[in-house]
């Protein structure tokens, strides 16, 4: 949207003889959009109350009319880890590098759930809030970002549970823990970028909403969530496997937490580059399509 909260210079320009009282009032100029426009990050700040309200709504709604309420935030990843531990650890007897398999699967799922949650929630955010998009003005970016925020809260709770798991299993993270925020940041960029692209596309093509869960399911099994990368034969298969930018991210995050070796420097560089690129692409795609959301949705 081509609105510019005008700076004083811009404000005086059109009329030339604007009286002082008018200069005091904030002015907004609405113009047809240009092809490329910078993202108005300050708008996100101006609308922080709404951003927060939307994120809070998201969280409140998810567990309304449930018996266990917020407990689900804790139970979901625990169940998930349990299933993974059973299938990969007990049935398939895969190597977890000496770590209890539940802990191993849990840390992988922590990263995966964050990624999965952000992509799904961001992607569906515009369509799910179609009436808002069509009838109310606010920076559209607020909707996917509020999805990111509410997923981050889930993540924080799950992380706290993870800490307890660590405590009970007698594992202590080492210095490698310091790398965790870095992997997390990359994961956020990748997930948010992907979510933004999907959200923008879903406004015109609802197919995205249908494809996405399937694609994510596929990605889940193609990522080292329930097993380590070392399971994949080295050489070509491993190289191909690591084309999935999520693989080094999840592996990196887990090794940071569990502190046992790191998969590779090159794949780390690669995945960072991809994450940043996807995030920027997400912003650009979103920005370019944003102006027609209200007309199309």
């Amino acid at each position: 949207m081509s609105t510019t909260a005008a700076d004083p210079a811009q404000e005086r320009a059109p009329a030339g003889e604007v009286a002082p009282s008018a200069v005091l009032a904030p002015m907004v100029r609405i113009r047809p959009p240009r092809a490329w426009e910078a993202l108005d990050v300050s708008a996100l700040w101006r609308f922080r109350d709404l951003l927060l309200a939307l994120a809070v709504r998201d969280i409140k709604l998810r567990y309304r009319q449930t018996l266990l309420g917020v407990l689900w935030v804790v139970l979901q990843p625990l169940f998930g880890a349990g299933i993974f531990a059973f299938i990969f650890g007990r049935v398939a007897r895969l190597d977890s590098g000496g770590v209890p398999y539940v802990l191993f699967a849990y840390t992988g799922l922590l990263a995966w759930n964050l990624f999965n949650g952000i992509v799904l929630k961001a992607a569906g955010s515009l369509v799910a809030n179609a009436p808002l998009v069509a009838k109310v003005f606010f920076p559209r970016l607020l909707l996917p970002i509020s999805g990111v925020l509410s997923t981050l809260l889930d993540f924080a709770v799950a992380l706290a549970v993870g800490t307890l798991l660590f405590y009970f299993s007698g594992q202590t993270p080492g210095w490698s823990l310091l790398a965790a925020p870095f992997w997390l940041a990359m994961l956020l960029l990748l997930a948010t970028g992907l979510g933004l692209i999907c959200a923008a596309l879903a406004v015109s093509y609802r197919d995205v909403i249908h494809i996405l869960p399937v694609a994510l399911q596929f990605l889940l099994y193609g990522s080292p969530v329930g097993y380590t990368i070392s399971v994949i034969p080295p050489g070509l298969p491993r190289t191909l496997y690591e084309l999935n930018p999520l693989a080094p991210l999840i592996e990196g995050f887990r090794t940071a937490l569990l502190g046992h070796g790191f998969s590779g420097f090159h794949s780390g560089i690669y995945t960072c580059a991809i994450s940043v690129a996807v995030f920027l692409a997400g912003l650009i795609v979103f920005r370019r399509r944003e102006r027609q959301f209200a007309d199309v949705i």
Partner: protein
Amino acid sequence: MSSDLAISVRNVGKTFRVASAARRATTLGELVAQKLRSPFSRRPREDEFRALEDVSFEVHRGEVLGIIGRNGAGKSTLLKILSQITPPTQGEIDLHGRVGSLLEVGTGFHPELTGRENIYLNGAILGMNRREIDREFDSIVAFAETEQFLELPVKRYSSGMHVRLAFSVAAHLRPDILIVDEVLAVGDLAFQRKCLGKMGEVAHRSGATVLFVSHQMPAVRNLCSRAILLERGVVLEDGPVDKVLARYLALNTSALVARTELPPGDPVSPARATAVLTRSNSGEPGAHFRLGESWRVTVEFELARAQTHVIAALGLRSVDGVPLITWWSAPQDLAPGRYAAEFLCDIPFSAGALDFAVGISSQERVLYYVEGVGCVTIDEIAAGEQPFRASGAGLLASTQRPLIRALA
């Protein structure tokens, strides 16, 4: 002159690209198929639809401007552009001051959240910050009359309560420019009146500039001093509200014709009115009369069977559907055939437009009834001629201009 300008709209236009239905891709599959078929054409062939064309107007601070027009005239598009929801494709708009827009009551209300939670969420959506909502909270609840249900999810509210709460939040928005679209079409009559009052209060007391779209002509007339008539994306008329409303109604009744054919009505009824004719007092067919001029209305009807105690009735209604007067013919016993009842209108209605309600009855039983038909415009042409005067409140024109005498 520009010192108290709140809104300045300059040559604004909006063109939608509408791919002809057959060519538009609405799913990815279609899009892919399309690209495969003609990989180099960037876009499918498109038709253009001009929703708004070269719209310009200015609104001064504290002014209450009504925007009227038929469905599809471009009102909502204009409001959406002014609210920054959708961008224009041409032109420029300057908005001086904080804009609050209310294009729909209760947008963002969530059925699972409680009344209290929805107040905060909706307030944030409308652009209020937390402190403002805190400050207005009690007043919002009081206005909506939903105190005892605050902690209940909104899905358990009656639809009336729902609307009241939603409007109440919006009414406590304190913008410099308030943009309102057709929100009064909801709620019961008493609450509608309360909302109107509140909007008037917002406009007059706080000095906010208000843009108001409605199909309810009494509301527009009550609130606004000035109005803009949009028709097919173009500003057709911009001026005092009465003048614009009259033009709107004339537009609505398609044409000012002296003879209006009436709808057939109930096929088994023995009576039906066929047409309404208007003519000047001297018998000239027409639907355009001067202020203070007398004119005649003829109701033509036919009877399929003989009826006793037959009465033809003609009702006059104002621009906004307010009934003004009803006339009845003297009761008569009639044989089957075609008849006409002629009414003389010698009442000096004020400038504006009128339409009719037509009824035929026998033995006080209604055999035929239709309303909102025909149209007569009373013009200001006679404005200068005594004793009439064009402007002034009321549905009747001034009928006298007494001389002022000096008191000793």
